[in-house]
Structures are given as C-alpha cells and as structure tokens.
C-alpha cells in the first residue's frame, strides 16, 4: 500500500525548518540594513540558527533517503511534475549551501564564528579578499533566490490545497486531514 503522507518525523522537520529558514531570511535582510543595537544579537542569532539548520538538513536528507516520499498524484500535469521536482532539488541545494557560504564568508574575512553560548566554530577557509567577496555575493543573491523559491513553493502548496485539492498539500500538512471536508 502506498503512503499518501510524509511521516510524522518528516513533517516535523519540514515545518521546523520552514519556520527557521523564513526567520533566517528575515533576520538576514533586517540585520544588514540596520545600525541599531539589535544588530549584535541578530547576527549571533543568524549564525546560531544557520548552524542548527545545517545540522537539521543533514538529518532531513538521511530521513528522506530512508523513508522516501509519497508519490505525486497521477493527475498532475507533466509540467507541474517537473516544476515540483526541480524546485525541490533547488530547495535542498540552498538548504545545504547557504550555511556553508555563510560560514565560509566569515572564515574568509578572518571573523571569529561565535554562536550563542560562546560556542566557536573553526574557520573553514583562510582569509582571502577574493573568496570573501565571492562567497558574500553568493550568500546574498542566493538568499533572495531562496526567498523567491519559498514564495513559489508556498503558492504551489496553496494551489494544491485550494484549487487542485489533490492531496499534495495534505501530504505535508502539519495536522491530519479532515476527510471529505470538500464535497
């Protein structure tokens, strides 16, 4: 029998990371556009949350490899199927790459990487003007791309939930579906 929903662990990780990633993107654009006292705690929070999300995505990938995913509905047009596939690869790629870019750009600027609680991460790159410039630009522009992709993901999820009503949204919905609510 085929599963129609992601497992409880998968849904928990999905929604935890969803909140965390959206928070990261807002903290990121907020902190680099302010000189207010919030700047200092925000940047520490950004690093700490980024490290936590990096660990979570590694767990998430393992869980996904073991538990798989429910199939997309057969009624889904091939274009949407392709879009779903590509956007999910891109989302996974960004979840892995963004924390590494952040850690790398800090390292390449010879900044100590300090998290909450005084936790220190070692540098992963030597100081380098060129690397810092490249990684910082990538971190910044990919963050905007990430947010755009999340908006697309959100729009698609709502399209499945409200327009197509094909069970795709319910597969990852945090709470069990109320059956046959829509007549």
């Amino acid at each position, binding site marked *: 029998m085929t599963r129609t929903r992601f497992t409880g662990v998968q849904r928990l990780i999905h929604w935890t990371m969803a909140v965390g990633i959206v928070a990261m993107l*807002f903290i990121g654009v*907020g902190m680099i*556009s*302010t*000189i207010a006292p919030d700047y200092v705690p925000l940047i520490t929070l950004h690093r700490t949350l980024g490290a936590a999300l990096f660990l979570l995505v590694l767990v998430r990938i393992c869980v996904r490899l073991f538990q798989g995913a429910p199939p997309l509905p057969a009624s889904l047009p091939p274009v949407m199927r392709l879009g779903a596939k590509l956007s999910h690869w891109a989302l996974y790629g960004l979840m892995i790459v963004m924390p590494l870019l952040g850690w790398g750009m800090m390292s390449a600027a010879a900044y100590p990487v300090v998290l909450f609680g005084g936790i220190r991460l070692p540098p992963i790159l030597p100081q380098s003007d060129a690397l810092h410039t490249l990684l910082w630009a990538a971190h910044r522009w990919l963050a905007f791309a990430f947010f755009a992709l999340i*908006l697309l993901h959100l729009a698609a999820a709502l399209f499945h939930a409200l327009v197509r009503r*094909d069970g795709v949204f319910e597969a990852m919905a945090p709470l069990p579906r109320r059956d046959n609510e829509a007549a």
Partner: protein
Amino acid sequence: MSRPSPSRNPFIPLAVIALVVAGSAAAFAYTAGWLSPQRLTPTKVVAALAPPGGPALGHRRNHAKGICFTGEFQSNGNGAALSTAQVFTPGTYPVLGRFNLATPNPNAADATVRVRGMGLQITTPDGDVWRSAMIDAPVFAVSTPQAFYELLQSAPKGAEAMKAFIGRHPEFTAFAGWAGTAPWTSSYAEDPFNGLNSFLFTDSAGTSRAVRWSLRPEATPVPIAPDELAKRGPNYLEQEIAQRVAGAPQRWTMVVTVAEPGDNTADPSKAWPQGRRTVEVGTLVVKQVEAEANGPCRDINFDPAILPRGIRVSDDPFPAARSAAYARSYDQRTAESKYYPRTPVTGGAKP
C-alpha cells in the same frame, strides 16, 4: 483523491494565494528597509564617510591611513576580578594591531588629522578573539550613531551648518574643546588610546559591571605644534613609530575604569566622574611595525563587537553601529583590493 472540481469558482482561491504571496514579499521588503528610505543603514553611514571625490578604493572607509604592528599583551591578572575572559588571567597573549589616523584619505598628511587611533586584536589559547578600535580623544564627538551621521553630513557644509549641528548636539563641545586645545605629539608611542564605549565585564560570580578601557603610554608625551609636525613630512608618524619600535619595544598600560550606578554608560561623549575605580590589567607591548599593504593588520576588521567570553556589549549603541558599518567597509574594500596592491612598488615610500 479528488479531481479538480470544474464547478468551483477558482477566482477566490487564486486571489487568496496572490494575497499571501504579495503580503509575504511586502513583509520581506519592509524588513530589508526597502520601504523605509529614512532608515539609517550601514551603507548610508559608510557612504557619508567618503570625501567629496569618493572613497579611496581598497582602503578602510575611515581611519584609512595606518600601519600594522604585532606584539603581546602581558596580563597581570588584576582584570580577572572583573571578567572571566582568559585575556585577564596572568600570561602573555599575542597581539596584532594598527596605528591609524581618523581620515578617509590614506594619503593624508599627518599634521592635517587631529584624531589618531589604534586597532587592537588580542587572541587567547581558548580560541577567543578580542578586537577593539580606540582613539586618542578622551570623549567621543557625539552621543548617538544618528548624531554621528548628522555630523558627517554637516561638517562638509561649512561653519553655518556646524553651528546648527552643535545647536542640536551640544555634547559636541566637549570633543571640540579637546580637539582645539589638547597638545599634539610627534609619536603614536606618546598617545593614549581610549575605548570610549562602555562594555559589560562579567566576573566568575556572574556579576556584570559596565566598564571602559584605555591604553596609557609609557613614553612621556612631548608636545609639538601641528606646524612643526607638518615640517617633518607627511608620513612622519609612520616612519617614527617604525624606527622607535625597531630600537625598543613600546608599551602602554591597559586601564579598566568601572562605572558606578547612575553613570551614563550609553553615551561615549560623556566622561564618567573622577574617582571611579580603575584597574590596571596589563601591558601592551608593541614589538614590530610593518607597512599595511602587505602587513598582518590589513585583513583584519577591528570590529568592536568581536569580544571574548566574559565581555559583552552594554547599552552603549555605538559598538553595534560601528560593527555594522565596519562590516560594510570591510566588504567594500576587500572587493576592491586590486586597487590597493599588496606588494608596494619598489621605492614607493607610502602606498
């Protein structure tokens, strides 16, 4: 699984989706400051530091003229009563720093720059890094980062604009008084360097106290008129400190002043009253001086919010504002490093 129902009007769900997406994008744009042109951003502050001809590419956006040094911090252990930071346990810790002039012009003549500074980094075996950027003035020019931005905008506009600025920010007169009357010296080694911002030191019992720190020179200051300094050449200070340190290490005593309840810890333009508890925590020893272009301080952002465990920012708004602006300056100058070659042209006196 249900098929899409053709009888349902798709307009309402699509409108809901559009609203959710547009609302999210608007919240993001608001957070990024795109809808608030009046927000004071690091970009604006750093841009305001630039001289009329534009910034010196590849260089720090302020305190652009400087020279690197290395040495050590000899901690005497007295600071351990105030902070758990390892730097205050007795011992000797490696130091990297930079003597500098508070100007956006890396080629400014020494006698044209009133304020001198020191960037300092002390590292400890536990992996902690303490960075600080200090100046020789005893108080900062203004009370808030916003006022500093106004100062940057007013200063180039002439006497009338400055008069109006001082009317709005009378705290500036204390700094202006120092600038107008304090004697100049002909050596970085004879200058004090003051942290000015207050930070919180936390001791082993968990008690936090607001403090400020200063470096007091061992060398006796010899006053010199700016005209006399000018006659010694535009880069005399760097030549002098290099020769002086080559002859003998130069020392400063680090003094930590502890605030009392009621002292204004949020305003670096206000000196604390005389008689506050002071603790001599150790000695900075400068052992070697190197040109900046290929020196060890070049790659370092002396961001005052980079602190060891046992030191935190206080209610003083400047370290956060400086941290944000310094990061912007660092991002810009490292992207422009081709304009500031690492290997100086042979025979070139000063990059």
